[in-house]
């Protein structure tokens, strides 16, 4: 039984197949990368995993249990957290309040939620801005807030959707460090990323898709050398 498994996922929007038969398995403690050109179906796959879309067909299994019919909030309670490609800060709440709201998923006590929130904020390095309104944060801060919030729900599996996009080089280094730290802390990670440097560096294994279908899977170096992958990304440099 795989720790986390996506089995023949298909998603049709009207007549268009956004995802057309994607399957992969993720082992516990792995950092598993998902790459593909724009529009290849990566975020749709995430949306199916986290319950925002129902698959047209196929299954998602977490620790042996089928989760693709469950509502999003239940999936969160089961231990799967996610960040969004287009960040969704709770704008008119402070960073601290954002994370407290997330921490409430594991407790009903304000005191405990706040305690947990502060711990996670510290872990993710947002202490200096904890009382700033989320909408006042620059993009790097917002991306980090996405991760921090998700971490406050104590996920066993974390889905990261393009958390590195829009960051400058030094911010990128910090982001990579944080992701590694999260894995070291015991969370399995599936990461969608466009910036090759990031995903090639931190992933244990990578799965490449194009037009909603798998085109390659393997270690970073194997995938980087794969002909189909190179063709799909013709012209893309490393960031």
């Amino acid at each position: 039984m795989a720790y986390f498994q996506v089995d023949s996922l298909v998603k049709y929007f009207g007549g268009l197949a956004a995802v057309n038969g994607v399957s992969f398995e993720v082992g516990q403690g792995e950092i598993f990368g998902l790459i593909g050109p724009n529009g290849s179906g990566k975020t749709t796959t995430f949306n199916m995993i986290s319950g925002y879309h129902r698959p047209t067909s196929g299954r998602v299994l977490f620790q042996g249990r089928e989760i693709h019919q469950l509502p999003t909030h239940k999936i969160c309670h089961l231990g799967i957290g996610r960040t969004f490609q287009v960040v969704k800060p709770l704008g008119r709440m402070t960073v601290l309040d954002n994370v407290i709201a997330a921490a409430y998923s594991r407790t009903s006590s304000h005191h405990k939620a706040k305690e947990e929130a502060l711990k996670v904020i510290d872990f993710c390095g947002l202490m200096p801005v904890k009382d700033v309104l989320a909408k006042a944060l620059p993009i790097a801060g917002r991306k980090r807030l996405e991760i921090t919030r998700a971490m406050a729900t104590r996920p066993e599996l974390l889905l990261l959707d393009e958390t590195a996009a829009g960051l400058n080089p030094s911010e990128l280094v910090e982001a990579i460090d944080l992701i590694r730290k999260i894995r070291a802390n015991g969370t399995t990670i599936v990461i969608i990323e466009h910036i090759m440097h990031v995903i090639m560096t931190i992933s244990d294994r990578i799965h490449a898709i194009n037009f909603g279908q798998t085109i390659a899977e393997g270690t970073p170096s194997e995938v980087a050398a794969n002909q189909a992958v190179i063709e799909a990304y013709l012209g893309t440099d490393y960031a």
Partner: protein
Amino acid sequence: MKKSLTPLVFVALLAGLPLIMKDNYYLHLMILFLMWVVIGSAWNLIAGYTGQVSFGDAAFFGCGAYTAGLLATHLGVSTWWGLALGGFTAIAVGLPFGWICFRMRGAYFALATLALNEVLRHGATIAEDFTGGMVGILIMPSFMSKIPYYYIALALAVASLASLQWVVRSKPGYYFVSIREDQDAAESLGVNTHLYKMLSLAYAAFWTGMAGALYMNYMGFIDPNVVFSLHDISIMAILVGIVGGVGTVYGPAVGAFVMVAVQELFRSGFFGLFKWLGAVSGSASLVKVAEVLTQAHVLGFGLLVVVVILVLPNGIVGDWPKIRKRVFRLGAGA
């Protein structure tokens, strides 16, 4: 847990008011004000905090009022039972109401609540055998003096504000605001958004229903066009919230005071000021102005809505920094 003493001071002042203010006219206005504090705060939770802007709160008000009234006409019991039960019947109506309306978001949700409000209004009119239809319900008020009603209204207002204060700082409070800010994000954080939207609606329905029951007891007469009124109840509730400031605990209380005062101001021609001025100065045109103001009070109200939305979109409490700056500048420049 620092709590400002200002609210307590206000409550004390309000409690002592009937001792110094004996005029029934002003007592009446205060009772209306307190009632609107309850309704406005309830709307504030579902709209200001949870972000679901309901245009149909009259549905709950009417439910509470009719519960009280129908208990009297059909079961022969005191309408005061309506105060205990009105909130719950409103919730009972609110649940299917919410189930229907929450399938939509934003402006469509608003429209759906408006439509349901109207369905209830027409329904109450048509179901003559049950509700008395257009004839309405008339009961004998329990008290001759306004003072007991005043204290009951005050108790209701204080209770509703205290409960709002408590909710806002609790887990549901956080969840409500997260739904407002980004419903999808909230879901990903484990918030059962459907459940919490219903909870916020139930809360709003409860308190608004209680206010309706109080209204039945106090005014002694209701009919579908009064208690299910779109403009006089639903829209007024929104105005109270918006003028005072949504998303703040005390905003609607401020809004309630302002709206009741302004409404009365127009209706009475600035409390008879113009008429008095006209009589004193002998100026016929001033008396005419007074007449015009009285006749056009709804017009004035409408204009007020337009102006407030343009100028103070976040309400008095919400835009307080903006107001202070303006007033400061006026003072400094003068």
